[in-house]
């Protein structure tokens, strides 16, 4: 693995909810709250979390579509928010995105060939070679080049996603941000798209930031995994360590929510019921652990103190005072939580 291609440092994206122009007091939505991540060239970083936890906002901010409240995003050591328009334009060459909804991310009035050609045209690719290049790209993602003149609505969801991928790789970017690229697709198609992404990664040495709410998908494709809860990264680890030895109780909850294909195994295992609903206004809670209201092992201490994001083992970080050890959910809480913080 090379050095860090992308570094996200203490990134915060807050949205203020304006309530009438006479009320000065505003509610803040902390969509992304002090997120720190790094991504090495050639690897795939999986980001998981339930809906509304800020995954997509994180992706959009990395793409420069959203302005951060504070913090930086470094791409190859360059802060992307300090760039002027021209530099940003050049940077966009290297970061491309695959969107969640394959239908709405393609212009319904444009031929698919032109859609794939759009990034090439935007960067002054010679007009003559475009058709040939697009045909190659279409072939690469498994769409027949004869369909160049078709409109997007003539394709299925999986095919549309392939077209979206072809568009993303057209400029040979270094990083591709995949914002839930498979969650809108059938399970069988999901596997095909994942395999396609993996093949392309091998072929072009791509780096993926792979956002998903589906842990089994992430397990399949990611080298490292980060779990986000309410805008905060609560666990960050290598794939193996993450799935074998998760520390954060929230991760345990997510893992236990994956249905097992074997009904007997499914029956036999102990599911951790998810306590309470997703807290609506917890985004603005400033005290205590974000996960407190739903945590099965929460202690009084957690209500008052914010857990630091610390290394629990060398390559495995989590933000919890009572990290779950030996895969037992209840875990022995240390008598003095501060010892585990250290």
């Amino acid at each position: 693995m090379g050095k860090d291609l992308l570094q996200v440092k203490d990134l915060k994206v807050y949205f203020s909810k304006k309530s009438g122009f006479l009320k000065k007091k505003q509610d803040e939505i902390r969509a992304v709250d002090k997120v720190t991540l790094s991504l090495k060239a050639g690897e795939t970083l999986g980001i998981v979390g339930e809906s509304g936890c800020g995954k997509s906002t994180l992706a959009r901010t990395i793409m420069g579509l959203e302005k951060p409240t504070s913090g930086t995003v470094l791409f190859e050591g360059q802060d992307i928010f300090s760039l002027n328009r021209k530099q940003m334009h050049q940077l966009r060459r290297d970061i491309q995105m695959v969107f969640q909804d394959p239908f709405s991310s393609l212009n319904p009035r444009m031929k698919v060939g032109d859609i794939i050609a759009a990034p090439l045209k935007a960067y002054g690719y010679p007009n003559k070679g475009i058709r040939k290049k697009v045909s190659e790209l279409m072939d690469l993602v498994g769409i027949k080049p004869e369909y160049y003149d078709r409109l997007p609505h003539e394709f299925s969801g999986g095919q549309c996603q392939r077209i979206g991928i072809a568009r993303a790789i057209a400029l040979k970017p270094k990083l591709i941000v995949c914002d839930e690229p498979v969650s809108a697709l059938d399970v069988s198609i999901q596997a095909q798209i994942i395999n396609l992404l993996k093949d392309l990664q091998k072929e072009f040495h791509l780096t993926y930031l792979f956002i998903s709410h589906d842990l089994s998908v992430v397990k399949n494709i990611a080298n490292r995994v980060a779990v986000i809860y309410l805008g905060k990264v609560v666990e960050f680890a290598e794939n193996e360590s993450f799935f074998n030895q998760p520390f954060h109780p929230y991760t345990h909850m997510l893992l236990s929510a994956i249905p097992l294909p074997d009904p007997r195994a499914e029956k036999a295992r102990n599911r951790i019921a998810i306590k309470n609903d997703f807290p609506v206004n917890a985004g603005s809670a400033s005290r205590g652990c974000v996960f407190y209201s739903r945590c099965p092992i929460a202690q009084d201490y957690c209500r008052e103190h914010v857990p630091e994001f610390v290394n629990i083992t060398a390559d495995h970080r989590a933000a919890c005072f009572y990290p779950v050890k030996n895969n037992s959910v209840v875990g022995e809480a240390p008598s003095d939580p501060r010892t585990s913080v250290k």
Partner: protein
Amino acid sequence: MIILVASVTSSVWLPHSPTLIEPDQRLQGLSLQHWFGTDNFGRDVFARTIAAAKVSFFIGASVALIATVMGTLVGLLSGYFKKIDFLVMRLIDGMMAFPALLLALALVAAIGGNITNIIIALTFAFFPQMARVIRSAVLKVKQIQFVEAAKTTGTGSGTILFFYILPNVVSPIIVQGTFTFAKAILAEAALSFLGLGISPTIPTWGNMLQEAQNYITIAPWLCIFPGLAIVTTVLSLNILGDGLRDAFDPHSRMKRSGAQRLSNKTKRETINSIGGRTV
């Protein structure tokens, strides 16, 4: 619709001149010689109706075209660029505060009533609505992900505006455009009826109606035929608008060409090709 357009172009063949005064033929009823009868000066109503169609269509088409182009441009820009949106929309609001017809009336009264001035006045009266409709359509389309996708691929604002957003707001443009066409014809008739339109020597449906109102009890055909002409024209323009919108919709295009069977076949082919690649 097509009949009307044809009659406009072939006004050359009219059996009677629309302005020829035949005093001995005044206020005659329907006859083979004068299909729609004659008016108080003995002019042929059929000939006048057809000739008036030419004027009405010219005004309607010009107003619709200019108002659509202006409205679309203003709507696109203010819908897409947040910064100018507020300013532009307040200006438009100001213009819309006047009833369209009243605004046109005032403008015509101020600058005088010839064809060009009427076109200018009606354009100003109708383009704010156009801009409003287009703006709201742009705001809606702007939210859809493909616009964002275009941004991430480095496509410039101009390209996004004209190749991504404009094609997707074509249907409201068409509908509003034909609607404006119809409204402009009506408004021109109303202006002429009020005596503020084009000089009475040029026949328009509006001033024909105005002249006819004095004779409505003794010669009802004088107002029936220009009235009917207005109604059918406006109606057919509205239907035309609907038809054009359907024709521009990419989803209905396939069905119209009867390619249903073809698409099923190609779907099967693509499934095969996908299966072949990724396993």
